[in-house]
């Protein structure tokens, strides 16, 4: 029983990592209607920038704020420069653009900062939470920050004019243009937001997994799985999905005898696919109904 609890807690802790990433994934999905495969690499790049600033002597919070700001700008720039020209190309062609971006970032990270793992500081400290050995203060802090970001985003989208404009641009670009919304800039804003969230995710994750160019590869895949599980149209669902993936994977690894350890990821994905069989749009996703 204690092992179950421990694994669930450990799952929540890793799940927090996936949840943060899933949130960033869903953000960009809501803005531009597809998945950004380069999200993880953008987050890694941002984290490296932050690390470099700290190396140069900046304080943690100064580096944090600067990195978030720079990432926001980078996101907008990438949209304007890279994706606007291919906006009218088939979806799959845009996918290739993401893959290209991934490749460029990953390779550059390795070349600029090499592959030795680096530590990244955390503002939350690393002592065990409340003295228990199950979850550390940093991990608890991470969960808290993710939930706070989620809440802020919810308020932004539901409660502000800009948020409404962004939702309109994503839901129905043509109609949005007719009401005077500058759809192009809404999409760019969505990109900027998602890159900024990704940067926060990266800076929260790095203290746990150590910073290196390949830091986010696995995390992105798990985050993607979590986002799909929760439902791509629901940010809350994505966060839930991220936590769920963490827990499922840990429990599968521990409790399924014989093959559990080696096939952990496989089992987790099978569970997700099984869930999708029952709810094809994710647990909290809304099934899109379109007029024929």
């Amino acid at each position, binding site marked *: 029983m204690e092992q179950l609890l421990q694994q669930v807690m450990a799952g929540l802790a890793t799940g927090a990592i996936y949840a943060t990433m899933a949130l960033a994934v869903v953000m960009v999905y809501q803005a531009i209607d597809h998945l950004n495969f380069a999200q993880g690499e953008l987050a890694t790049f941002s984290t490296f920038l932050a690390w470099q600033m700290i190396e140069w002597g900046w304080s943690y919070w100064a580096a944090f704020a600067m990195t978030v700001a720079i990432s926001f700008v980078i996101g907008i720039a990438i949209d304007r420069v890279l994706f606007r020209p291919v906006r009218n*190309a*088939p979806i799959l062609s845009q996918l290739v653009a993401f893959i290209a971006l991934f*490749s460029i970032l990953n390779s550059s990270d*390795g070349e600029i900062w090499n592959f030795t793992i680096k530590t990244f500081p955390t503002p939350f400290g690393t002592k065990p939470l409340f003295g228990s050995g199950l979850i550390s203060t940093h991990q608890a802090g991470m969960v808290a920050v993710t939930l706070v970001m989620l809440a802020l985003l919810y308020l932004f989208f539901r409660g502000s004019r800009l948020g409404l404009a962004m939702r309109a641009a994503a839901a129905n670009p043509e109609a949005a243009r007719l009401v005077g919304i500058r759809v192009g800039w809404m999409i760019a804003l969505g990109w900027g937001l998602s890159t900024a969230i990704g940067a926060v995710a990266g800076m929260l994750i790095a203290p746990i997994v150590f910073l290196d160019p390949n830091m986010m590869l696995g995390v992105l895949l798990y985050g993607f799985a979590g986002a*799909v599980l929760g439902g791509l149209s629901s940010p809350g669902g994505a966060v839930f999905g991220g936590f769920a993936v963490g827990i499922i994977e840990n429990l599968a690894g521990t409790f399924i005898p014989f093959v559990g350890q*080696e096939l952990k990821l496989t089992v987790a994905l099978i569970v997700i696919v099984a869930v999708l069989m029952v709810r094809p749009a994710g647990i909290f996703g809304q099934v899109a109904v379109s007029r024929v």
Partner: protein
Amino acid sequence: MTMQEHEAVALDTAAVPSEAAIARPLGLWLDRRRLLIGAAVIAGLMAPLVVANFTIFQLTMVMIYGLAILGLNLLTGFNGQFSLGHSAFYGIGAYTAAILMSGSAELSYYWTLPCAGAVCFVVGILLGLPALRLQGLYLALATFALAVALPQLLKSHVLEGLTGGVQGIVIDKPDPPLGLPINADQWLYYFTLAVLLVMFAAAAGLVRSRTGRAIMAIRDHPIAASAMGINTARYKTLTFGVSALYTGVAGALGAIVVQFVAPDSFSFLLSVNFLVGLIVGGIGSIPGSLFGGVFVLFVPNIAEKVSTGLSGAVYGIILLLLIFLMPSGAAGFVRRTAAWLARLRHTSTRGGA
């Protein structure tokens, strides 16, 4: 699919259009196309006689990747089902061939191809059934699960006895039959070329047939298609099976040519490579798949020549340039150029008459 894609695909697979005004230039174009294909085949037959062994090996791999990408094309390009899992079919085909050739069965290499195809067909169908309920990115995740599962399964100690586990399986290179005066590399090239021609022709035939039109109708307007009486479930599942078969046969050929299979060769990254090759070659274009194969093999080499340390970055930049210049892939680019040329000829003909 955008409007441009609709037009482009229609141009490629339509029968002779009704309007007489453009019938002649288009007819000429189709004839020219057959000439081009014929010329390409002849060049393909001559190639191994003039180039070095190592280049023959590369050309054989290009054909194999082209075949694998054609498999993906059938599913994603022609039927609209997004798959990130084709590395798994390629891997299953490769391991089927390797196990049959090296194990107690000691099957001759040419029999492994139909076996690999059959196994993958069955797996494809089994996957196609649950895939019916999933769309777009959700389907992508399910196929991605498959791609991730395969290396783990191959390495697991449950299957180790069969698959050789992490050490993989080493295969012998087949010799040319009947003491033909060519070496093993050239023989494998011709063998692969023959398989390629047969399977490409079959795919072209499939696409032009009623079944093919049904498959494409499902991609373009699934609801209208089923309203017209097309059994979407059956066609979608079948397409999954056929697509897996094609990529599985390619995998078997790959195993024979490389003479080695190991679990981590068939990871998710290979699926991404196939997808990139598909898009660069042109979705919904059969010859485009071959161009995709060329891209997948040669562009990483080119990128490395430019910069060893930043080869990934160079690769990404080349990819971006290609997408900017040819958003519908190489096939789309060729089509557009041909249509533009045809229009030029048409206006000059009209003007002259």
